[in-house]
């Protein structure tokens, strides 16, 4: 049942691709660059964020005024602020596209679970950075959010009240509060880069930028939006104002939407369950090797006597599964006699794709269950029949 739903989702995803490829050359299909688009938006966010950071004052009395100052007095401040806001939405959209696309097209199999797991952390951190961003404006919306957050945290047994104090930096909103929020906005944003390193570590030549058209398009879009629909703050937060219900941005604020329907503790539990399930996805529907057939042809093996140390497989393996080590002894074939290096496959990283087989011109690599002579035998049989 669940499997069938996923299969249908996969079909739908790929059908969209087919349609888009009719309109655009496939190298430009934006859905092939959701990761690159996320990275592009992240870069826009970081750059505009640095600009805003110069002017922002993390103090409950000053924050709102400093943002008004940015918007009204600083040259291009209004635009940059808008860019920061809209790029954040673009970031989330791109991340979710990236997540769902890779989920539905099963790009988490074998050792691809490393990008998947790090991706879950990236998602969590990105959402967190987004939410803390809403507090920066320190208007009535931020105040309402704060009330809801405190309510949620307080519902955690035992540590709840303590977490409350930790977040606020004291018994109530004070001088230290916004400094903490700024910290929680900036530090996880920087941590995203650490996580990205983990995300890319097993990927050779990761596509971290979309094609130039899409870079220009996204840039144009956020700039255009920020000048056409300027971002505005609400009224300044004040201790006397009553937090009211306000329209929430669904992309980042869905945990708060949940509060309408479930108790605060359940919203936290649900978030936690979703996150854990996300981590479990790559291991959930692993097929048995017998049914995988040619998709599970065994970890690539180096035929040591033939390897010349030419490094071609090392450059082409998409998962950095091949490393070159100093050759312990000369190879046996003529070409391999004077080798300095030897290719070694790290088994835990190999996804059994066979790309290194195609790369090796010296017949020094084989997939154990789909050996070169088997392929050639079948080709011969086909030619003779």
């Amino acid at each position, binding site marked *: 049942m669940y499997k069938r739903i996923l299969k249908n989702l*996969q*079909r739908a995803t*790929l*059908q969209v*691709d*087919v349609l888009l*490829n009719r309109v655009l050359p*496939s*190298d430009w*299909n934006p859905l*092939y*660059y959701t990761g690159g688009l996320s990275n592009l938006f992240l870069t826009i966010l970081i750059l505009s964020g640095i600009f805003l950071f110069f002017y922002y004052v993390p103090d409950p009395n000053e924050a709102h005024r400093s943002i008004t100052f940015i918007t009204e007095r600083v040259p291009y401040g209004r635009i940059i602020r808008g860019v920061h806001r809209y790029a954040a939405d673009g970031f989330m959209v791109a991340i979710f596209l990236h997540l769902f696309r890779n989920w539905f*097209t*099963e*790009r988490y199999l074998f050792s691809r679970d490393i990008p998947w797991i790090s991706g879950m952390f990236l998602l969590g951190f990105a959402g967190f950075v987004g939410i803390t961003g809403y507090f920066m404006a320190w208007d009535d919306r931020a105040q309402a959010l704060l009330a809801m957050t405190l309510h949620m945290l307080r519902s955690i047994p035992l540590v709840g009240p303590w977490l409350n104090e930790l977040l606020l930096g004291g018994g109530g909103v004070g001088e230290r509060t916004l400094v903490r929020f700024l910290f929680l906005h900036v530090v996880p944003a920087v941590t995203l880069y650490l996580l990205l390193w983990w995300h890319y570590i097993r*990927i*050779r*030549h990761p*596509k971290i930028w979309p094609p130039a058209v899409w870079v220009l398009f996204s840039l144009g879009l956020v700039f255009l939006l920020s000048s056409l629909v300027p971002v505005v703050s609400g009224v300044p937060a004040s201790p006397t104002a009553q937090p009211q219900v306000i329209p929430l941005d669904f992309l980042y604020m869905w945990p708060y939407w949940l509060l309408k329907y479930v108790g605060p503790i359940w919203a936290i539990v649900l978030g936690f369950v979703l996150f854990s399930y996300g981590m479990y996805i790559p291991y959930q529907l692993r097929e048995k090797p017998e049914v995988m*057939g*040619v*998709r599970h*042809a065994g970890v690539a093996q180096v035929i040591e006597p033939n390897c010349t140390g030419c490094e071609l497989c090392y450059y*082409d393996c*998409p*998962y950095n599964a091949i490393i070159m080590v100093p050759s312990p002894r000369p190879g046996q074939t003529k070409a391999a006699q004077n080798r300095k290096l030897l290719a070694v496959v790290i088994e835990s990283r190999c*996804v*059994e*794709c*066979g*790309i290194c*087989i*195609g*790369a*090796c011109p010296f017949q020094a690599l084989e*997939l154990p269950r*789909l050996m*070169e002579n088997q*392929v*050639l035998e*079948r*080709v*011969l049989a*086909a*030619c*003779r*029949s």
Partner: protein
Amino acid sequence: MSELEHSSSLQSQEKPTLKVVGFVCDWSVDLKGALTEDGRLREVPNVYVMMIPCSGFIRPSWLEFALKNGADGVFVCGCPYGDCLNREGNFLIRNRIQQMRRRLQRQRIDPERVTMLAYGLHDREGFLLAIKAFLEDLRRRVVPGGQAVTRAAQQSSPNEIS
């Protein structure tokens, strides 16, 4: 043009059994149910298909081997460019096939007998259309004697000018 098509259909009568060997990535076109027991395409029975883990798995020497052992044409099919499960397999094999074509040209083997296709999991129709077009093209290139013509001979034929 109609004359050409006419002559090509004549040729196909004389040599109805073009042999084509294809390597299809298991993640690209879904051919479940479209293959016969011995691995031929049901719709185009002179195409023998072998499923492989990724289009990048193919060594160009295997394609050459097939051509030299009696196949009239060979093709590799991967996912649409940009959508390779392994991100690069289809780009790599595309480049390798391009290099190989130059090699074939030097050996006076018609490089158009090798082709690279890219179709996604649910694009079987597109794939079959491309295969049929490829066969049609091959038929034009195969002289009645049975051997596919070389590039040099091709160059003088009118349908090569484009």
